């Protein structure tokens, strides 16, 4: 990641945050608004981050993956289904049910990716078509099973959606606690306590969110510091060169696409097991494609992709937080009241980024090209 890109990302995030602070200042203290924005940004960036990492492993190995959306949707459904089975049919408590759900989400993402790998590596199908197949298949399978299992009388769940196991509990990292302790040394003040509470808000996130951040760091390490990463990048850049030094190109591509699918699967789990305790058809709502844009904007690097995901997260956080301040929006900013306008922000950003306005990004040289011996 070049510094220009980072600076641009910081700038966009600052502008988005600034807009909300400006609007909400009359009602809330800026620090509370910023903390709330930060917390939401990190939360909603989770599926984007995981989706972008998914794309990253696929494309670094030379397989274009526009099926992230479908992989996430499939995983969201099957993860949720597994959790419900565990809790309502087998009678497991909530947490184990949810963890089994996460496991199945990852597995189902991996299976969808296996299909994508077979199509694009073994059968050398056009990878855009392959990804489209994944997306359409995901909509079909999840929509069909959702109706058959829950809304048809005589089905397993007898025509009703059973009470699910809820969502994964947030984990609080006691940063706020530490801040409070430091506050104590100086004699407790109002603003110090506010700051501590804000920290508690930011550092209370779901386990998948924490996992996503750890996975960013891990992905960077794997891609750039290990044998696996070097070989993955080589088959994405110059597969013949990799072949001539005895690297099995097909095997590397399969492995990376499946790994990517599993990451997308974890991203899918976020929707139904961490964010909300239910499944709705089409609930990923284009997140997989935004994740793809984040990966491109991040120039095919984990940290870049993460930073870009945070930009999109911030845009979404702005949309969510603006709704709170609906009544105090000044008349000249009235158009912001229409939440749809604000809701467009992530998509407009995606388009802007893809036009290359913020500088050219360079994909792996063999990205999307099947390897012919």
């Amino acid at each position: 990641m070049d510094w220009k890109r980072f600076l641009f990302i910081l700038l966009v995030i600052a502008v988005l945050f600034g807009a909300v602070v400006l609007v909400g200042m009359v009602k809330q203290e800026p620090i509370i608004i910023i903390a709330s924005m930060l917390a939401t940004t990190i939360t909603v960036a989770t599926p984007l981050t995981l989706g972008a990492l998914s794309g990253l492993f696929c494309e670094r190995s030379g397989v274009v993956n526009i099926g992230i959306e479908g992989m996430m949707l499939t995983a969201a459904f099957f993860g949720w289904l597994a959790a419900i089975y565990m809790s309502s049919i087998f009678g497991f408590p909530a947490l184990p049910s949810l963890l089994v759900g996460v496991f199945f989400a990852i597995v189902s993402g991996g299976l969808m990716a296996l299909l994508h790998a077979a199509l694009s590596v073994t059968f050398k199908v056009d990878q855009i078509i392959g990804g489209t197949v994944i997306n359409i298949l995901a909509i079909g399978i999840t929509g069909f099973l959702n109706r058959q299992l829950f809304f048809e009388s005589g089905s397993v769940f007898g025509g009703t959606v059973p009470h699910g196991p809820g969502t994964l509990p947030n984990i609080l990292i006691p940063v706020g606690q530490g801040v409070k302790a430091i506050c104590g040394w100086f004699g407790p003040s109002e603003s110090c306590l506010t700051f501590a509470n804000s920290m508690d808000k930011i550092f209370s996130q779901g386990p998948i969110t924490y996992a996503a951040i750890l996975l960013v760091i891990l992905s960077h390490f794997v891609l750039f510091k290990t044998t696996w990463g070097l070989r993955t990048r080589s088959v994405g850049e110059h597969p013949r060169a990799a072949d001539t030094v005895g690297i099995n190109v097909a095997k590397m591509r399969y492995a990376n696409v499946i790994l990517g699918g599993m990451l997308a699967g974890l991203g899918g789990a976020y929707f139904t097991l961490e964010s909300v305790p239910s499944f709705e058809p089409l609930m990923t709502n284009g997140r997989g494609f935004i994740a793809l844009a984040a990966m491109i904007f991040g120039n095919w690097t984990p940290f870049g992709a993460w930073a870009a995901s945070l930009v999109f997260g911030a845009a979404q956080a702005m949309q969510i937080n603006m709704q709170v301040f609906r009544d105090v929006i000044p008349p000249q900013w009235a158009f912001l009241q229409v939440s749809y306008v604000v809701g467009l922000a992530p998509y407009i950003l995606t388009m802007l980024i893809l036009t290359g306005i913020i500088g050219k990004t360079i994909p792996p040289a063999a990205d999307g090209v099947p390897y012919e011996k």
Partner: protein
Amino acid sequence: MTENNIVLEARGITKQFPGVLANDQVDFDLRNGEIHALLGENGAGKTTLMNILYGLYHQDAGEVFLNGQPIEIHSSRDSIKAGIGMVHQHFMLVPVFSVAENIMLGDEITRLGMILDEKAVAKRVLELSRQYGLDVDPQALVGQLPVGVQQRVEIIKTLYRDASILILDEPTAVLTPQEAEDLFRIMHELTERGVSIIFITHKLKEVLAIADRITVMRAGKVIGTVTPKETSEQKLATMMVGRDVILTVDKGLSQPGEEVLKVDRLKVHDFRGLEVVREVSFEVRAGEVLGIAGVQGNGQTELVEALTGLRPTASGRMLFAGKDLTGKPPRPLTETGMAHVPEDRQRHGLVLNFSVADNMVLNTYYRPPFARFGVMQPEAIDANARNLVKEFDVRTPSPFVAVSKLSGGNQQKVIVARELSHGVKLLLANQPTRGLDVGSIEYIHQEIVAMRDRGVGVLLVSAELDEIMALSDRIAVMYHGQIVTTVDAKKVTREQLGLWMAGARPEE
């Protein structure tokens, strides 16, 4: 002594590809510490044989012996283990990786079994580069290195894997003469340290200069093995092509007629906006060859692009057949009688996925008889292709085959056939024989002389001094975007031209 010990031997290798017997009962052996050249035209089966020895293909029949023991090579991993390293014609390097990353790829030095130890690799690379005189910086990005240095990286890559047998596939094709000299020095250095080298090429001069033994292949068969002492360029060429080849061009006196092309103080900018052609003036007459000599990158490419309507001119004029056609697009130029054989035949001369027949009408497809009222006329296009294939001796299974399937020489013939098949007044040939084999070069040269004798004006641009001297009637030397001097081809020496090309000013 180990001098005559055979380290690698192939016996009776046969490899069949769909439609081609690429290797037919091939025997080949390599002695310890020798440079054994494998000579042959494009498509003779040299690269197939080497790909079998390197494990990229597997032979249908025949055996390979390493130090007298039979060995099965099924993948490049097997051959690397056997101590065989190959430097491919198109480098197998990842441009965005560092030198060290490229060298270690597939055979990484690690800590804890998976973490790359770049320091250890860099140390090993520096050791090797010192040991063999292969100067290279392990941290440099490969894509930013000159071609000659990239080749060194490839050689170190094989040495890093402890290769004692080195296969170099057309290593000089991409090098400047100086870089080639450097490579030869390195090759001697390597053989002195016990490495045995198989050197694949189709350049006769190089073979005689550096090889200990020469094996010639033609049409999948070994024709014979000779030493440089007992052979000559002429004999080798005959072995390669299968008939006597005329290495020197036989041409009579030129009969210059009227002026067909007049270039007057032409200025051209390159893609960065720099002035790379600076006030160039010259003229080409009907029935003469004007050769433009010069080291590559002195504005020749941009000059030709401007003359053929592919690049805008900054100022100056171009008169073609008496008309001012400065800055006109290619179509009116073609219709006035300009033929263009471009520098990069695959990118600018052909549509690779189109058939031979379609490529032969790329400049005339829109007018009768090939199109009527905007509808293509397949019969006329096919008939045209069949005629041209016969007339220009294009070796193709059929006119409907994609032109990408043809060898380089035949691709060039397709272009020449297309360009010369309509009324031509001027032929602009830019590097017309680059990368071609002896037989094709001979053919193209004869064709150029034949055009001249038919009263066509020829502008020949080439970086090969031999080619310029052999074909031109007059020679213009280009240096730094300017024509330094124009001389009579019969009254100038190679040395003198070389000096002018390097920037010396003619005394006057």
